[in-house]
């Protein structure tokens, strides 16, 4: 479970995220949506420990990211929109490296399973510069899932994937949630969010403007009744005069 309370992040005179509170329960897929500059990336970076919040608390499975960062991080996996791979490690070596970093006892079997699932079998001895964008994304996903995380944070997970891989990625996300993993998915693809997510958190100008299932959000705004997610999103994030 990911529990966020009063998350605030400011840079000099810019308030990127303001007093954001939400929780992602085990087995749930929460969609994080918002226009460009809404504070999604900042929120994700705070959640996975890349940057420190200016205020508020973040807990992963009850472990506070500020006071017990290693315990929290051991349970987390972050898959950024742009795969961050090491140009001097092969596919197999990336997995070996991540296995040791997270102390994965069943690393060999788990790696083989992921490599097969993500169709990286014939690329195992290849460096990242020999991989296509989609393959790099798959490797980043394999690295993220290797240590059986209980909280999964994904930023635009479908970027660069071909249709087949998109289908498998969606299945993987669903399977992770079904196995009890708390999934937070940030994406501009509203159809993906609508298709996969249990609940949606809409943020705008650093604030949460709506949270719940699509039906709950619609019912809270009578003027949105009968409209699709795209219209709901645009109405919620319309610029205030």
């Amino acid at each position, binding site marked *: 479970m990911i529990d966020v309370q009063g998350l605030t992040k400011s840079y000099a005179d810019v308030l990127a995220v303001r007093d954001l509170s939400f929780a992602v329960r085990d087995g749930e897929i929460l969609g994080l949506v918002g226009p460009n500059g809404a504070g999604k990336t900042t929120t994700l970076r705070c959640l996975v420990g*890349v*940057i420190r919040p200016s205020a508020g608390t973040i807990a992963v499975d009850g472990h506070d990211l500020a006071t017990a960062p290693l315990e929290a991080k051991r349970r987390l996996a*972050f898959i950024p929109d742009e795969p961050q791979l090491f140009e001097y*490690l*092969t596919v197999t070596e990336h997995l070996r490296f991540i296995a040791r970093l997270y102390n994965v006892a069943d690393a060999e079997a788990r790696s083989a399973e992921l490599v097969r699932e993500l169709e990286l079998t014939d690329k195992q001895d290849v460096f990242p510069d020999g991989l296509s964008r989609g393959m790099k994304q798959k490797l980043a996903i394999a690295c993220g899932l290797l240590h059986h995380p209980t909280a999964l944070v994904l930023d635009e997970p479908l970027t660069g994937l071909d249709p087949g891989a998109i289908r498998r990625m969606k299945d993987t996300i669903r399977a992770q949630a079904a196995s009890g993993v708390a999934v937070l998915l940030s994406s501009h693809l509203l159809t993906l969010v609508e298709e996969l997510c249990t609940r949606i958190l809409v943020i705008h100008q650093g604030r949460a403007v709506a949270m719940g299932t699509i039906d709950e959000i619609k019912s809270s705004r009578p003027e949105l009744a009968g409209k699709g997610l795209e219209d709901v999103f645009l109405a919620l994030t319309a610029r205030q005069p």
Partner: protein
Amino acid sequence: MTTLAWLAGVGIRNQLRRRAARLKNPRYALGLLVGLAYFWWIFARPGSPSAAPQTAFSPTVVALAPFGLVLLALWSWIGGSYERSLAFTPAEVDFLFAAPVSRPDLIRFKLLRVQAALLFAVVLIGVLILHGPLPWYCRLIAVWVVLAALNLHQITAALVRIGATERGRAGLRRLGIPLLLVGLVAVAVVWSVATAAGGGSLDAFLTALDRPVPRAALLPFRLVLAPVFAPTGRAFVLALPGALLVLVAQYVWLMRSDAAFEEIAAEAGRARAQRLAALRAGRGLAAPRTKAPRARRLRLPLAPTGHPAVAILWKNLRALIVDLRTSTIVLASVGSAAVAAVIVWSAPSAREGAQGVGALCLMALGVATLFGPRGIRADWRRDLAKAEVLKTWPVGGFSLAAAELGATTLAVALLQYVLLLVAAATLLFGVLPPHEIGPAVAGGAVLLLALPIIDGVLVGIHNAFALLFPAWMAIGAERPGGIEHMGQTILTTVGALALFVIALILPALLAAVVWALLSHVPLAAAAGGALVAIVALAGELVLLIWSLGKLYDRLDPVAAGVAR
């Protein structure tokens, strides 16, 4: 082509504007001042050897320069990296390759775009380094002709090599006639040198170069260099047409090679997408890889469980192994062996030859100690570019810091140990008198213990700079240029050495105290003093690692500018 010329011009102008705008930041302005001061000190200060007015270049320099240029040209064919010569940026690939632009125009665009870097080098060489009898503007023109010709030659070599690679045997056959000609000239030059009277001396070599065949072979190189060495303005004007003729001939060759490249590309019929992917991956216009690149065979074992920091050390060692090219090892080994052979050969006796080699190794050890931790960068200086991932790893600050410093420290220490071993082998056996062997062995043992700690401290200081002032350091694959970056490099290098000297104060004081206390037993005083100094320095290293861990934990990659 007009659009591409405009694009190249605007690109150069904006690059200069961006550099100028960056100077508003005090650290870049300070860097520029230090960089300029460095050049002034080296080349222009009163009393500097390079600032002394020259009436004419020495005949030896004039005679050897064409040969030097030949070597540079040859390097383009043998070992030069053609990827860089033909590299286009991803934006250029996306916009220009998709546009209706012919490949010759692309090559011309590339030539225009490289002029900014070329002009910087021209100013540097023409104004700051060369102090010939010519007016400064003549020197600039002369140096530009040489560098432009060399650049054209590099690109031509790149295209021909790509062509040969793509066409396989057919490509090699295409290279047959030029290779045969070059081979014949090389044989003629070697034969001339070998049969010259008084073989072995520089004079004999110069005489050999002046024989008809080598002279004819070197003619294009002499022509292109003639304006640089012209003793008068009139001589410059007379020499310039010859140099320009070579430049034009080189340009024509390049364009003809380009036509061949088009033909080759059509014959090969490879997917253009693959080429674009190669370009996007920064491999220039190189032939698309038919096989995915395979890992180097040297494996490093890593158990899946255990302390996670070991994984980071393993990763960085792996980076060093992958970076270490076989050609580098071969060149370094052959070069070192050649230098050692020259020293031994020119020494009056074998003993003195061995002494010379040993002394050289000790000097190299000093250089490796001072500059190795700066030059080898398998640590945060490389990893911080991926801070977005690093910060998610479940590794504590202290462990992470120790692991990050580990690989570079080990690599420098390994290099030092090799040098120390060679120095010991050459100095201990037959060179040092028997009564000096004991103290020398003891000194070597102290160095064995102390060197990794010294390296760790220096690597730690450089990493502290990376964490504190990431904008001053080259982070990741970034290789910033310009005088301001050179100034920043000087500042950080001097700063690191100054901090290192400060770090040595406490160990030195403690060693002095021990020495004073045990002075009645000189051996114990020396051993005790050294041991205490090493322990104190090790303590400082632990403190440094701890501080680096804290610093890293507090680092905000976004605010520091190392993450998007």
